């Protein structure tokens, strides 16, 4: 779960990282109020959960009230990279003499946290990797040994920032690592970490994403993940315990695995347009697949449903009962093609055929999609 900047910056502040004076505002009046308290000039930052807000025009400076109203009016309720702006973070506009970068992520290949620091802040770290790799220092943390502050100092010495800056910067890294591990984060990042004219540091941005698998055991308060999901169908999917991703086509998809669901999408997408991605994971029951049918059918103008399920960990014959019950109760008329193989496959086929589902018993998803195409044709 990605946190909003205003949420992450509160966490950073609580852990002792210096952050700007600020306030969150959802209306122009609130923006004015916060700016009045902070004093001009201020920064107005759209609170959306996507990167690259600045380049997309979601971050602006305002030097006086008139300008502030104009910008706030334009940003609030507008869209930044497809996400609606509901709140603005209003912050002091710091006088910045230099911009640094610090970020901690999990390196998938080595399986270790990696701390990255750079004297080149305010730009994408991927760009710096290409343009000025000598301005980047990184360190992988051994998960069994853990992180100690001396490692941050060792890391920063490679960038030779000078004694005073090194000490302050290393302190920020230590605190950031503490957040990373306490919140079980996937990423924490400050870009830029500003150096002020008096030599002090200020985190003028805050990026943080926490591991969904650990949400229930993090000891600090976190926002409700469910409320965070903007699309109502995707939220409904989460509620019933499946992964639903909304797409803009008209062929519904239900699959019993993530890879199989993506492959189904890919193959269908060659000639038709998927309405959604839905994967059940390993928890299929009669009730769950009934609810999956309900969810997929919530999309209007669906032309067909494509079901692709394997009985490995899943009792697909139980799932088939749920699908059949939905079809019967709703006298469903659109074509349904189902490929079902694995444990209890014969029983599954029989149940699905009894309610008019076109059952495919070959392994290749391509064959099942061919049958689907014969039934519904290409795009309308």
């Amino acid at each position: 779960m990605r946190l909003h900047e205003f949420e992450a910056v509160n966490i950073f502040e609580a852990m002792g990282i210096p952050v700007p004076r600020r306030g969150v505002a959802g209306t122009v009046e609130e923006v004015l109020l916060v700016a009045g308290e902070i004093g001009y000039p201020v920064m107005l930052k759209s609170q959306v959960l996507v990167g690259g807000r600045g380049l997309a025009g979601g971050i602006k400076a305002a030097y006086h009230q008139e300008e502030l109203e104009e910008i706030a009016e334009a940003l609030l309720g507008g869209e930044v990279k497809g996400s609606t702006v509901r709140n603005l973070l209003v912050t002091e506009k710091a006088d910045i003499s230099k911009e640094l970068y610090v970020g901690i992520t999990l390196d998938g290949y080595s399986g270790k946290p990696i701390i990255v620091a750079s004297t080149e802040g305010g730009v994408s770290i991927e760009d710096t990797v290409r343009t000025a790799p000598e301005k980047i220092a990184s360190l992988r943390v051994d998960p069994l040994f853990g992180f100690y502050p001396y490692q941050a100092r060792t890391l920063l010495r490679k960038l030779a920032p000078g004694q005073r800056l090194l000490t302050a910067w290393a302190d920020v890294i230590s605190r950031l690592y503490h957040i990373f591990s306490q919140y079980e984060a996937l990423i924490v990042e400050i870009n830029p970490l500003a150096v002020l004219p008096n030599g002090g540091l200020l985190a003028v941005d805050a990026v943080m994403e926490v591991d969904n698998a650990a949400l229930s055991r993090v000891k600090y308060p976190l926002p409700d993940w469910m409320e965070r999901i903007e699309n109502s169908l995707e939220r409904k999917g989460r509620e019933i315990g499946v992964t639903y991703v909304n797409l803009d086509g008209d062929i519904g998809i239900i699959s019993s695995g993530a890879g199989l669901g993506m492959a189904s999408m890919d193959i269908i997408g060659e000639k038709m347009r998927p309405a959604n991605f839905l994967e059940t994971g390993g928890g299929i029951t009669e009730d769950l697949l009934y609810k999956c049918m309900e969810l997929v059918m919530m999309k209007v103008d669906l032309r067909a449903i494509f079901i692709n399920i394997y009985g490995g960990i899943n009792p697909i014959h139980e799932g088939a009962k749920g699908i059949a019950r939905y079809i019967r109760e709703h006298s469903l008329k659109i074509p349904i093609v189902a490929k079902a193989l694995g444990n209890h496959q014969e029983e599954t086929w029989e149940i699905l055929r009894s309610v008019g589902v076109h059952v495919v018993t070959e392994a290749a998803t391509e064959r099942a999609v061919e049958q689907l195409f014969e039934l519904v044709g290409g795009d309308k």
Partner: protein
Amino acid sequence: MGILIDDSTRVIVQGITGRIGSIQTRWMLAYGTKVVGGVTPGKGGSIIEGVPVFDSVEEAVKETGANASVFFVPAVFVLDAFLETVDAGVELIVVVPEHIPIHDVIKMRAYAIQKGVFALGPTTPGILVPGKGKMGIMPASLFAPGRVGIISRSGTLSYEFAGILSENRVGQSTVVGMGADHVILTNLDDILRLFEEDKGTDGVIIVGEVGGEQEEKAARFIQERMTKPVAAYIAGRYSPQGKQMGHAGAIVRGSAGTVAGKQEALREAGVEVLESPIHVTRWAQKYNLK
């Protein structure tokens, strides 16, 4: 032949008393796997599917001579059980459960490497050696003995590829689920190494998906070290930016982890990239794989 499971493999099932653990034990036994015991703390002394249950891995190993373990343990207890299993001297661990916190997984991975234990997962369907045995949840009916190795990030797609091959009379030496999380216990290139060394394997299929850089790193290994033919399919061409596609590791972030990027890296390494699973038969025929 094949990799990881042979006649000397003696398996314990952790979480054997659970609903999934007990059903899967029955199916593993039915497939001929030597399941010699189970472990659920507090349930020692009982019998499940004719198999003795122990309170600890240490006892199970001592009493049964087990050298491999498959996990059906609730996600939040996996770290503890995993460290216990490594300490008990088990050499091969298969972690089936999904949704294990990644800060646990990095500890598991580091400890397994330190102690020289071969571990797979999390979020893996396990390992299946056709006709010999299986550790995990793969549905046996789709597999046939032969000389093609499969490594898959996705469970269901490993069944799909094995199923297509079996229908076309191409058998498998071993099918391995590498795990679908952002951090996995053994990386793809290390599994490829086993297939390269296996006398029973003539060619390998990699079934990847969007997200991470396992396939890209494997491409480097293939270029430098593999002599056997390799084919690859990468799922998720139409996955929207930033959306997690079911698996914890299946997410495109910016330009990283895209299908196109992975395909390009693999192609450059001499891998035959399959645009659709069904093309796997043609590849197998080209190299006369059986």
